[in-house]
């Protein structure tokens, strides 16, 4: 589903961000991506949705290759992915419903199908009663739920979450994480970058740790206990 083949990403000014990574994320997996700031987590995720192309190697996501994907291919790929960020990235002048519907409108979805789909995902994220609220009228946790609803509305095969709880308090973090677990349980793979080691420790999900652009630990290859002294 998501494959990295000896992927390196370098920038002219800042040097190498990701170094010789080979990785496979399968259908329905839940993967934590962790590591210090600047370890390369965000660059790795950006290469999944082809916002960045590798300097060397290849990224292949659901049949789309970083080597030859056209802008049209990238747009079509992103309709099959859900992407969530720390800063929510909602449109301030649109309501929660309109923000979610926006993801369907830009893909040319039939007007009649938009309303029911938006209602379904807002219910799924627990915001059925807040559809007409603007982002400024919602808490941080609620805004992130709207962002997740927007990411889910196109029924993605994978949800990419880059520090989705970075701006949230503990309670909201737990709520968002529980929501991501439910989404994963329903069959959607989740790739989540996070600094929250406490959150990771409490779970049995696959964990990939990065350091200076390289993968230094992957629980899929190495049992968790083996890493600890």
């Amino acid at each position: 589903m998501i494959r990295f083949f000896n992927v390196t990403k370098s920038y002219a000014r800042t040097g190498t961000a990701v170094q010789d990574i080979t990785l496979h994320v399968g259908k329905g997996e839940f993967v934590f991506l962790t590591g210090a700031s600047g370890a390369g987590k965000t660059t790795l995720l950006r290469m999944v949705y082809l916002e960045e192309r590798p300097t060397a190697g290849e990224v292949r996501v659901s049949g789309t290759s970083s080597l030859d994907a056209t802008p049209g291919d990238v747009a079509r790929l992103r309709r099959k992915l859900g992407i969530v960020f720390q800063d929510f990235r909602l449109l301030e002048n649109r309501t929660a419903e309109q923000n979610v519907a926006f993801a369907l409108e830009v893909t040319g979805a039939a007007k009649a199908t938009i309303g029911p789909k938006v209602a379904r995902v807002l219910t799924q994220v627990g915001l059925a009663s807040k559809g007409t609220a603007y982002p400024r009228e919602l808490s941080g946790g609620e805004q992130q739920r709207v962002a997740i609803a927007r990411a889910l509305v196109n029924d993605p095969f994978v949800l990419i979450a880059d520090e989705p709880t970075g701006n949230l308090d503990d309670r909201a973090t737990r709520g968002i994480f529980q929501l991501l677990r439910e989404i994963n349980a329903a069959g959607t793979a989740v790739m989540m970058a996070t600094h929250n080691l406490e959150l990771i420790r409490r779970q049995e999900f696959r964990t990939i740790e990065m350091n200076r652009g390289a993968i230094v630990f992957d629980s899929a290859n190495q049992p968790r206990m083996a890493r600890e002294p």
Partner: protein
Amino acid sequence: MRSLRDALVTFRRAPLLSALSVTTIAFSLFAFGLFGLVALNIREALDRLEDRVEVRAFVAEGTPIETIAVATADIATFPEVLSARTVTQGEALARARRELGEFRDVFEGAVLPASIDVRLKPGFRSPATVRSVAARVNTYAFVDDIRYGEEWIQKLYRLRNIAGIAGLVLGLAFASVSMIIIGATIRMAVLARAREISIMRLVGATDSYIRRPFLLEGFAKGVMGGLLALLLTWLARLLIDRYIIETVFFDQRLAALGLLFGAMIGLVGSAVSVGRHLRSV
């Protein structure tokens, strides 16, 4: 339909920025329009002067009027000739008196030669063509002398060339400046929606989908700016007419071309600004 709605929504969501864009386009095109008005009136004046280009062949005294009439009809068939007319001795005297006004008595009892007055078609009034027609008319045996104000025609022609080149260069300069200013205002509109564009891309919108409303918006702003510029130019022309000199204004075809030019500038400016933005994000 969605693109049209989005383009209209932009006017409603950011009325100040939209008004600023339209006004900037209008003033850029107004400057271009004023230049166009001056160029048009210079051209009109030169056309009127050029209209007076004439070859006058003086006929030897005693030439039968029938011979002159046959030659006149023959000359009228030259491809360059607009009209050829016989001017008898009596008509020549009357014309001289009319043109000299208070000095009309100078010609009391004088005898002026008959002539064939040849006017040339537009596009055949260059010094070389006039000289060539004059040489052919001069081949008639009864032609005593031929006048066509060679020096004056050369000066007129040179002036026309200079006006044409200056018009083209200045016109291009004005158009370029207009495009740069308009491109910058549209870039402001694009930057104001940068966040929306980045989100659109993240959720899978194609570049053409993102581009369409901006193109429509640019087109609409170009048309509105063009209309406003046309109105301003018309008002300026009214003032010039009243206080300085009578002028001619753009006909419907030129006015429509001006509007089309505004629309195209809006469209191209938008395409360039959005394209550059999409490449940079």
